[in-house]
């Protein structure tokens, strides 16, 4: 068991993961930043999109329409810059699970609507939700899980801060000797 754990840890800490994860992060960041733009520009339209799913009670629609686009934007920026990248990826996981629950509800009720992910329902009537939408979201969820699990030393601000911290630690240890 211990050997298995250490083998997994060795695989998890392989330096190649940072580079693969960087590509995954850039892709997810592009997805989320492009998804949040229309939601930030047209909050009312996004609120209608949420209402169209007929899933949430009225009291939760506007708070979600107000907050979610900024969470998506922040997540995208954090993934690009490598700032708390694993936390950002975990946020992506949370959002994807939330979207997939809403999608399942819509599919189960045969709602002929667009997912509202990249444009409002009114603007994307030709892009209806389908099991393929669910498949796409599952793929994004798996990519985010990959970043959470394997991007142990993310390239970007996280790595730079870690290097600075390590350097400060080394110099602090060296000082008393001097």
């Amino acid at each position, binding site marked *: 068991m211990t050997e298995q754990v250490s083998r997994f840890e060795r695989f998890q800490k392989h330096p190649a993961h940072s580079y693969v994860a960087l590509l995954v992060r850039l892709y997810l960041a592009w997805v989320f930043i492009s998804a949040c733009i229309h939601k930030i520009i047209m909050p009312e339209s996004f*609120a209608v999109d949420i*209402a169209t799913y007929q899933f949430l009670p009225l*009291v939760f629609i506007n*708070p979600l329409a*107000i*907050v979610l*686009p*900024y969470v998506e934007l922040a997540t995208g920026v954090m993934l690009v810059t490598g700032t708390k990248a*694993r936390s950002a990826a975990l946020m992506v996981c949370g959002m994807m699970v939330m979207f997939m629950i809403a999608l399942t509800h819509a599919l189960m009720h045969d709602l002929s609507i667009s997912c509202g992910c990249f444009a409002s329902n009114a603007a994307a009537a030709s892009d209806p939700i389908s099991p393929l939408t669910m498949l796409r979201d599952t793929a994004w969820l798996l990519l985010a899980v990959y970043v959470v699990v394997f991007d142990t030393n993310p390239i970007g601000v996280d790595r730079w801060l870690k290097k600075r911290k390590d350097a400060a630690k080394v110099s602090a240890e060296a000082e008393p000797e001097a």
Partner: protein
Amino acid sequence: MRTFWIILRDAVIICAVIAVAGILINAVRPDGLPFIADKPYDIFVPCPEALGTVEMIAPGDSRLTDGKAFIVDARSQEEFDAWHLDGAVCITYDYLEPISDEELKNVTLNIVNSGKERLIVYGDGDGGQGSTGYELGRELAGKGVSHVFIVEGGADAVRKSR
């Protein structure tokens, strides 16, 4: 495991901070949303449509009276009571509600039990697109009922041809 909790903790804190920021930005925006909607949103969700292909037949067509057709009257119950073709069954077509699975099951069972080889539907209006007979026929065809025919001219034409 400890690392995961740190990642989760950071994610929760970041979400909370962003949520507050989002609420503040919304509050100062001229087109910001009220935090709680005061009335339900007007949403438009088109009804799911399963439409199949049907064949039009003339009101005097012999297939209507050869005893091998299961005949459905798509008009209202009142219109059906006032006059209907002998042997016809009333299934009132509703423009807003698709035919329920229960109703579809009943119709299918009736057709199978009757031993008829085709389904002929007539309704109001001219029997063409938009009339109850045409729409019901296409809906039934779209839900798997085969050999569906629509009577041109609807119930009026059928009555005149008798």
